Every structure is written in structure tokens, then in C-alpha cells.
């Protein structure tokens, strides 16, 4: 069988540049059918809680952050956090995605206390702190990644979101997020976390200043790490949303999104799940994405702030999510953070 041979960089590049969109989709669909033969599409009920929007990184693609001292800068209070988590539980939620900016003044104690507070008071999984946050914290504390992650795990961290990957190529990172961790540092956080048994997702934000080759470099770096650790549960690509940011490019189109999604399914043969991004693509394209390799529709996102800050406000409740999946000919299945059915 042709697809049993592993795809190399050149093959991926040729497919990306020359293959007809629907043929590429059909190839990805075959791989999805093999990995997920039960015709199920999963989703998770959760809420994105951004504990702070204060961030010293100043990434050019970000419309969400505020510099320290800005009048709209915030750090979440315990009452507000509790309320948000309780609402999530009331709606049948199983996890919170807890991420912030890279706050210059918060110490490890803040994070461990935050986690202990949550875990003591609420039966909820914390999927929290992307590699740039963890990398920054470890450096500031003068601790190793291993030590920092162990502390966070002991305090209740359950898994790590794959954010902050953007494009895992330093040329691109220097241009769009020069103050954030390098590609190697991002991968090192993930490798250490996976080594400790902490699983994570991996993401990709494309459609800004990167080349096609750099998009593929990103995929292959993720694939190589996964070969060593097996710790990635899912891959989640999405398109850069330029509104309110300091990168002036037209938004990557839905055809480009579906092409990249399908290619991800073909390259990332060692990552079980591929998530469609309805938040950036809207419900119609998200549904179509289920025929281009995606087997998961992500979260109902009771709350989402980061993409919304860049001018995109699609909303999808659980009922809509289920309908989108079922009218596409699949069975909808709520899952937990580790893609296990609930």
C-alpha cells in the first residue's frame, strides 16, 4: 500500500504545491478512515480561561495581549476564576484551557497556588500553560524545565496545550515573535513534559510571513519529536487572523487551510488526532474539514478571547457541534483531554 511508506519532505512539498485540492483531501480522508474506522468525530466541552492578558512578548500577530501597566491589562481574581470554572462544570465541561500572556512578575508560586486552588475546589482537568510560558518561568526561576514541570504537575497540571508553536522555524519567529522562545526551546519543553508523562497537543499558526517550506519544516519537526516521545495527542493547525495585529497580510483562505490540514494528516502519521479549527474557519468549513483528514472538532469553547480579539467571532454551542458532526454522516462523541470517550 502506497501510504504505508513514510512521506518525506520532498514528497510532501510536491503534494502541497501540485496536487489537486480534492485529491489531496481524498488521500487524507483514507488515512483518517484507517486511524478512526468507527466513523466517530469527537469534541470536548471546555472553556478557555486566560488568567492574564499582560504579556512582555509583544508578538506582532497578537491582538490579545496588553503591556504591563496598560489600562486594559488584567490578572484574573480568584472569584472570577471560580465562577468561570463552576459555569464550565455546570455546562458539562471536563477541562479548562488555562493560558495567559507571559507575565513578567508572576513566580512559580503563583502558578502552583493557582493550580492547587483549582484542583482543591473543582473536579476539573487543567490543560494549561503553553511552552513559552513554561520556558519563561523556568528561566526566571533559574530552574530546569524538568524541575519546573514537575512542580506544576505536583500542583495539579494535567496536560499542556500546544500553543505558542506558531511556526517552528527561528527565521520566522525572529520576525513575528522575537521575544518568545525559539523553536528548539519550544520543542525542548514538549520533550521534557512528554518525558515526565505529561501529554500535550501541538499547534501551528500559518499564513503570515512563513514560506511553504517553513510550514513543512514545522510539520516534520513535530513528527520527529513525536517519534521520540509519542506524547502528542493531537495536531491543531489554524490560520493567522490579521485584524488588530501588526502583520498586514490578507487572511489565508479556506482552500489554503484545507490543503494544509490534509497535508498534516498525511505527514503526521504518528499523531492520532487532527483537530479542525471552527473558531478560525467557521462552522461550514469546519464541517468540510472532516473530509480533509480531521477527526475532531475541538472545543465548544464556552469562552474564547484570543481569536475574538483579532475580530473573529464564530459561536458554536454543543447542540450545533453535534448537528455539524451528524449531518456530515459521523457520530458525535464527547471526549476528555486524552481523546477518550465520555
Amino acid at each position, binding site marked *: 500500500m502506497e501510504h504505508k511508506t513514510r512521506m518525506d519532505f520532498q514528497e510532501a512539498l510536491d503534494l502541497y504545491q501540485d496536487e489537486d485540492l480534492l485529491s489531496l483531501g*481524498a488521500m487524507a480522508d483514507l488515512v483518517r478512515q484507517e486511524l478512526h474506522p468507527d466513523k466517530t468525530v469527537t469534541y470536548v466541552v471546555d472553556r478557555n480561561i486566560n488568567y492574564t492578558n499582560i504579556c512582555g512578548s509583544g508578538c506582532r500577530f497578537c491582538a490579545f495581549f496588553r503591556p504591563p501597566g496598560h489600562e486594559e491589562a488584567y490578572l484574573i481574581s480568584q472569584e472570577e476564576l471560580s465562577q468561570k470554572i463552576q459555569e464550565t462544570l455546570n455546562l458539562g465541561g471536563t477541562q479548562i484551557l488555562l493560558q495567559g500572556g507571559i507575565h513578567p512578575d508572576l513566580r512559580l508560586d503563583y502558578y502552583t497556588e493557582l493550580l492547587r486552588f483549582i484542583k482543591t475546589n473543582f473536579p476539573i482537568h487543567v490543560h494549561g500553560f503553553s511552552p513559552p510560558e513554561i520556558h519563561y518561568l523556568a528561566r526566571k526561576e533559574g530552574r530546569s524545565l524538568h524541575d519546573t514541570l514537575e512542580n506544576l504537575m505536583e500542583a495539579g497540571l494535567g496536560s499542556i496545550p500546544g500553543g505558542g508553536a506558531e511556526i517552528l522555524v527561528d527565521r520566522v519567529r525572529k520576525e513575528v515573535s522575537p521575544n518568545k522562545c525559539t523553536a528548539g526551546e519550544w520543542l525542548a519543553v514538549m520533550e521534557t513534559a512528554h518525558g515526565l508523562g505529561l501529554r500535550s497537543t501541538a499547534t501551528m499558526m500559518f499564513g503570515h510571513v512563513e514560506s511553504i517550506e517553513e510550514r513543512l519544516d514545522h510539520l516534520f519537526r513535530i513528527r520527529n519529536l513525536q517519534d521520540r516521545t509519542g506524547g502528542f495527542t493531537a495536531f491543531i493547525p489554524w490560520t493567522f487572523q490579521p485584524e488588530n495585529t501588526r502583520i498586514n497580510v490578507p487572511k489565508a483562505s479556506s*482552500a489554503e487551510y484545507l490543503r494544509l490540514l490534509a497535508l498534516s494528516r498525511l505527514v503526521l502519521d504518528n499523531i492520532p488526532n487532527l483537530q479542525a479549527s471552527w473558531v478560525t*474557519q*467557521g462552522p*461550514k*468549513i469546519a464541517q468540510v474539514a472532516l*473530509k480533509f483528514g480531521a477527526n475532531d472538532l475541538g472545543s465548544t469553547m464556552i469562552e474564547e478571547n484570543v481569536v475574538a480579539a483579532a475580530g473573529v467571532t464564530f459561536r458554536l454551542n454543543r447542540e450545533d457541534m453535534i448537528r455539524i458532526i451528524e449531518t456530515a454522516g459521523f457520530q458525535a462523541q464527547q471526549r476528555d483531554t486524552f481523546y477518550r470517550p465520555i
Partner: protein
Amino acid sequence: MRFTDPSLSKIHEKLLRGRRLGFEDGMSLYRSDDLLGVGRLAGLVREEKFGRDTYFVRNQHLNYTNMCVNRCVFCAFSRDRDEEGAYVFDLRTAEEQIRSRLHEPISEIHIVGGLNPSLPFSYYFDLIQMVKHIRPEATVKAFTAVEIEFFSRLTGRSIEEVVRELKRAGLEMMPGGGAEILSERVHRKLYPKKIGPVQWLNVIRTIHGLGIPTNATMLYGHIESLEERVTHLLSLRSLQDDTKGFTAFIPLAFHPENTRLSHLKTTGGMEDLKTLAVSRLLLDNIPHIKAYWVMISPALAQVALSFGADDLDGTIVEEKISHMAGARTPKGMSVGEIRHLISSAGFRPVERDSFYNIVGEGCKHGA
């Protein structure tokens, strides 16, 4: 070409042999779970007809009144005469709207409205004359078969006479609205006061006979069955065999919000793409298939170019009818945006006029 659904291989065979698809083929396509297979078949036909060319037009919409005696169940645009929000443009207002965009190289003015008994027939004649007078280079594409039939009753004159008169005023082409679903069952339930399927087809036949080309539409995603959709498409195809008067077919995704069918849900992306692809495959004699971005979103319309569509309609400003029904799409797109939408999907943008003559080729500064 390989398919995961074997029934698609048979249809592929038929297409390769140049054989016409029938009702059962239409149903197999609609029922197939191999969406990309159906899309690839439609893509083949599209490629053969137009290569990678994708058409768009610079147009302006003018919805002259929303007062309507039909009050169809699926409509969020229409109002009764005394209802809040009811409006009618007098000629001066209509003229202001046209004049407000005189600086843009618009090549088509699309005019449709409700059935408003307070307007005399001379209003429509004057409206077209006014537009042709201040925008002589633009094509006036105006009035659906439903409006024409209403004018005929209003004046006591035949369809022929009404159309001849409007043609004299400058009418050159007509849109394809008001077909809804060409089924007596759906007609009785959703649009009982409006002309039904037989009459719609007859009026169009007469219009084509007078040398006025029209488009054709299908409003899908409400109470109709798949069988009724396929029958609709085949009714259009059979009329087209006789008249050759249809220029483009435009499937219209139903938007339930603010209508009396608001308990229904909007169509899914897969259903929209499937409908476009099936249309491309069944309507072998209608030249163009249009992905109307106002209703299905620019993002999905772009993907539709790989599912058989070859036209993205227009730049459009001031679209009212779909937006009253809760369409969250933008109300207009710039020529730059539409060109980018087409080219970033690997297709070639071609600016056209109403009759698909190429506009502005070799005049690249115009973009």
C-alpha cells in the same frame, strides 16, 4: 479516478462516454457519502468547460421595495404595507443609489423587489429607463418571473407584452429568483400565493422566447426532499433543452433566521458543496454554476470552485434580502478581495459582464 463509493464509478463512466445523467444518478450523487468523489466529478466537468477560469462581475443590487403581497413562509425580507420597516424607493431615491456609485466601473445593475400593488407599471418602466440613462454602459438585469407575472396581472396585459415593454425601456437580462423548489407540494406549503412550478417555467419560457436570457435558482435547505431537488434540476434542464435561455444556475442556501421557519437550521458546508456539485453534473446544458458567497460565505464559495462552481457572482453592495434572513456574510466585497479569493485557491480570476464577455483584460491597472 478512484472512489470510495462504487456508484460514483458508474457515473464517471457515463460522463466519460458523454452520456446524460438521469434522476437516479442525481439521487446517487446526493446520497453518496463520498463528498470529495462527487466534487471531483463535478470538478472534471468544470475543468473541461472553463479550465481554471473563475468569473465575477462588478455589480450593484437595488431592492426597490420590500412590500409584498405574497408573504412567503421562507422570506425575512418582505413586509406588509403598513408594517414597521416597510419601504419603497421612489425614483429619486433609486436614482441617488445608482448615482452614489457612478465612480465605480459597475457593469451590471441587479434589480428585484416585492410585489407591491401600490406601484403602477410605469414605475418599472421608468426605473429601468432611469438606470439606463445615467448608467448606459451597465446591463440592467431586473425582475424575476414572479414579478413579471405580477406586472401582467396588474396591467391585464400578456407576459409577452409586459416583457416587450420593459425591453423597450432597456431591460436586457433577468435574474433567476422565485423558482424556490419547483414542486407543487412545496409550493402549497411555503409559497402558496406566488406562482407555482408550472407557471414559473412557462413565464421563463416566454421570456427566453423574446430573446432575454435569465438565470435559474433553487432555494434549498428547508422542507424539500432530495427527490424534489433532483426533480427541480431536471425540470430546469429540460426547459433549457428547448430554449437555451439560461445563463447560470445559482443554488441558494436557505437562511431560516427571522422567517416563519426559524426552527430550522442553516445548511451545513457539506450540503452546500454537494448541491453545487450535483447541479454542475446534472445541468449539462446550463453554462455556468454560481457559488453565491452572500449566502454560503466567501470561505465556502472559494472551496466550491473545486466542486464545480465557476462563478462567484459579484462585488455587490447593499444586499438586503439574505441579510434580513440573518446572513452574517459581508454585504460587499472589493474587486481585490474577490480576485484574491479566487487566485489563492489556485484559480484564475476573470472579470465578466452580465453575458460573460470578458471585461478589463489587458487593463491590469483597473484591479
